[in-house]
């Protein structure tokens, strides 16, 4: 690994934040674990958020919903607990196939101190053997966007069986195709068994214990990692599997921990690296020298910035992140180019002033900002898509780069005279 770069002081900002709350994580988690149901305990705003974010998906057999608090619930807490039991009973009666029920806390439920952990325990006792009830918070006051997944996964950690078996645990949601591909590659490297958290079935939870090595697929899993470490697991430090370089280092970290011969690693991965670089080349030509500004959204910003600068030749104007977990980001920070300006938190208006002053070639931002910036003549790439796309792994590096090249390419294509 190269020597640690010198980075200017972190810009810590507070002010208006234009980000999603953790409830939004339901939008992808319900697909990863189809036998789970996510019941938000909150207000009409929470219900409106989830349906606005989930778009058309809400109309399939619903796997999430909101227990909307009414004025009666706000009057007294005991009443709210009874009401919650009633709603859960109704729901489970209608949907007997649900195996895991997530009670998801929201800002209103946190502010009135509705004890959902206790409620989950209570319902669990009653429903034992039929359905498992767990609780996490997706509230905006505590969590930002992808941190909701961190909450959901760390809520599952106490339910994992114990095992001392040597195994590799991939932590963080991966697209099915990407997960399968990683499993194939780990098999070629002779690493196994390999398991995933979250699993595809909420009842098929992987075991954890002192033999478990953790490879983080996503950078936003601070609480989950710490909970797994408390169960004896060891985290393998590595950059995240974005781009050719990050993905190779990620897999190599596992190989080193499992004592795989470096020659075998090179034999298995180097042809993929070479192919990946070839696929990246035309995209690099489009992105090279372009100036990039990332606004905070998912905590994917730093690994993305590392990939886009080192492998695609982009120049980094500012890399914003909603929350910076230094230990989990150490290997990524070490790979950033000299002088990269990082910012944590947000003061939206001031950050937009910096965007306008810098006139970057591409701004990665949320959908509340994207069209308004486009109207100002600034090209944008909306960031939420990165959480919904298969972007991990050496073979996906070109696809990941294409997500950023596409808006620039489109601007070249469109002509009005």
């Amino acid at each position, binding site marked *: 690994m190269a020597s640690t770069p010198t980075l200017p002081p972190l810009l810590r900002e507070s002010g*208006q*934040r*234009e*980000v*999603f*709350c953790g*409830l939004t994580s339901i939008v992808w988690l319900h697909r990863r674990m189809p036998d789970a149901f996510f019941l938000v*305990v909150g*207000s*009409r*705003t929470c*219900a*409106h*958020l989830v*349906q*606005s*974010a989930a778009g*058309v998906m*809400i*109309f399939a*057999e*619903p796997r*999430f*919903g*909101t*227990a*909307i*608090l*009414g*004025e009666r619930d*706000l009057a007294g807490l005991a009443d709210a607990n009874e*009401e*919650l039991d*009633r*709603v859960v009973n*109704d*729901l489970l*009666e*209608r*949907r*007997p*196939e649900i195996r895991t029920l997530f009670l998801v806390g929201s*800002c*209103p439920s*946190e*502010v*009135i101190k509705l004890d959902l952990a206790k409620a989950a325990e209570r319902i669990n006792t009653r429903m034992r053997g039929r359905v498992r009830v767990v609780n996490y918070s997706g*509230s*905006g*006051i*505590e969590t*930002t966007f992808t941190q909701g997944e961190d909450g959901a996964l760390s809520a599952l950690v106490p339910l994992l069986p114990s095992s001392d078996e040597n195994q590799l645990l991939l932590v963080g949601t991966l697209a099915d195709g990407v997960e399968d591909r990683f499993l194939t590659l780990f098999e070629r490297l002779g690493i196994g068994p390999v398991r995933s958290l979250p699993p595809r079935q909420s009842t098929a939870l992987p075991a954890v214990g002192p033999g478990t090595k953790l490879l983080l697929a996503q950078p936003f899993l601070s609480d989950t990692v710490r909970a797994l470490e408390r169960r004896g697991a060891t985290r393998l430090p590595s950059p995240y599997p974005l781009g050719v370089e990050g993905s190779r280092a990620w897999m190599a970290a596992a190989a080193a921990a499992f004592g795989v011969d470096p020659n075998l690693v090179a034999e298995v991965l180097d042809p993929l690296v070479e192919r990946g670089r070839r696929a990246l080349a035309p995209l690099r030509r489009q992105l090279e020298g372009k100036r990039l500004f990332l606004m905070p959204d998912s905590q994917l910003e730093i690994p993305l910035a590392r990939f886009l600068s080192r492998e695609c030749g982009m120049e980094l104007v500012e890399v914003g992140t909603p929350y910076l977990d230094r230990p989990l980001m150490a290997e990524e920070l070490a790979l950033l180019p000299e002088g990269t300006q990082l910012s944590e938190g947000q003061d939206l*208006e001031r950050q937009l002033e910096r965007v306008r002053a810098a006139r970057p070639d591409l701004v990665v931002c949320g*959908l*509340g*900002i*994207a*069209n*308004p910036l486009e*109207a100002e003549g600034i090209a944008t790439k909306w960031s939420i898509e990165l959480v919904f796309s298969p972007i991990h792994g050496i073979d996906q590096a070109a696809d990941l780069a294409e997500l950023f090249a596409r808006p620039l390419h489109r601007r070249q294509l469109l002509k009005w005279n």
Partner: protein
Amino acid sequence: MELTLWTYEGPPHVGAMRIAASMEGLHYVLHAPQGDTYADLLFTMIERRDRRPPVTYTTFQARDLGGDTAELVKRSIQQAVDRFQPEALLVGESCTAELIQDQPGALAGGMNLGVPVVNLELPAYSKKENWGAAETLYQLCRTLLREQLPAPGTPRPSPDRWRAEGRRPRVNLLGPSLLGFRCRDDIKEIRGLLGEHGIDVNVVAPMGARPADLVRLPEADANVCLYPEVAGPLCSWLERQFGTPVVRTVPIGVGATRRFLAELSTVLDLEAPEANEADLRSRMPWYSRSVDSTYLTGKRVFIFADATHAIAAARIAADELGFTVVGLGTYSRELAREVRAAAKELGLEALITDDYLAVEKAMGEAAPELVLGTQMERHSAKRLGIPCAVISAPLHVQDVPARYAPQMGWEGANVIFDSWVHPLMMGLEEHLIGMFRHDFEFVEGHRSHLAEGAPPRQAAAHEPDVAAVAGSSMAAAANGTAAAGATATLAPPTVTEGTAVWSADGEAALRKIPFFVRGKVKTNTETFARDHGVAAITEEVLYDAKAHYSK
């Protein structure tokens, strides 16, 4: 606590945002937790706006709750006023802020901001989006017009004062807003219609208006209440305080547009419009009379929407297209009475609910051939295999089209004719599928004029009729008609308790009924069997029932 899988309306502060974002020169400071900025996307993505909504959020986090959130509110207010220099300021809370009670409106009132401040009290746990929009518009106008309020006992201005003043009559168009259904083009259509009748537009609000424009509201000779959900309370208040008469007919549909013009000319003391104007100006009356439309007669239609669009749609469906309205409902509780009256005229009981499972269940039971509803009904209808057109908010991005697509006025009627008839099977195809059922391409439920028509193999493989009656497993389970239905494959028609058993030849005969009326035939036959104590439904029983109901 209420289990909700889908909400027809957002919280009331989203209604307030709609007013702020629709207007110019108005800013909204919203005390809300981090994350509530999701609502910006409704405007930047669904309405595809090219600028951020004029909303400053305090976006407090858990760590702020230990400190002085009131100070955060004041800082946000001051920064918003300094940065955006609005003509007027809305200050309010979202649901979570309502719980911590910082009284942001009162705080703003004490800050000497130099602009009018409207303190919004929107109870998030009992009211919803449209109420929030209506209340915001009303409170805003009340604040801005306070100084102009006539002294008690001041005589009302005569609606025909325009004549004495030697000018054309002028009206306000009230209610159009962002996230309303086709408001952008409705305004253009109605403005044109009024212009042709010698009527000027004084102020359109909230869409496109500035606070300074709202100050001119009393200068109009009449208020046109285009969207009662948003402008109803304001129009009533202006009538009470300033004596401005209100035109309450909503000009959606040919008949309604005529009644609208008639009401307007009465109010303004204008000459009545020509009797044949509709035929001259809209193609819809001729299209609907032309023989190609004969097959539309008696098509069963289910309508669920906001009150304004539901009532208008019911009239158009029954009087102008010759459909049979088999269900009418709304989620607008504030206007439930009006919808109940409209339903009664059609011999129906109105469905007043905001529970989408209840709507889906009612839809399944009514077994319509066409659904006119909101974005949500589009998907329930898809699940039940019924053609559907969207007539009201909540809407999605495809219902904010680039093309001119009003619902109101003469052109609105043209748009409605096209968009409602389009999802139905075309006449020739309907005949041919009724005659020949063994085709390899044009199979059951296939609508070849729709690229996305029912996939042939799938349509042939399962039974859309049963789906149409039993509905989704969830709706069915809620209904108590199916035992804990976990699967989407639906039980055969024989399981429902208390229902006669279908014999093999009965089922074969049922399958010969064209698929879009099969659901109704099935229900009718079962009802007939039950009423006549028939235990097994044979082919003959089906024909008995057919004859019985054709009487």
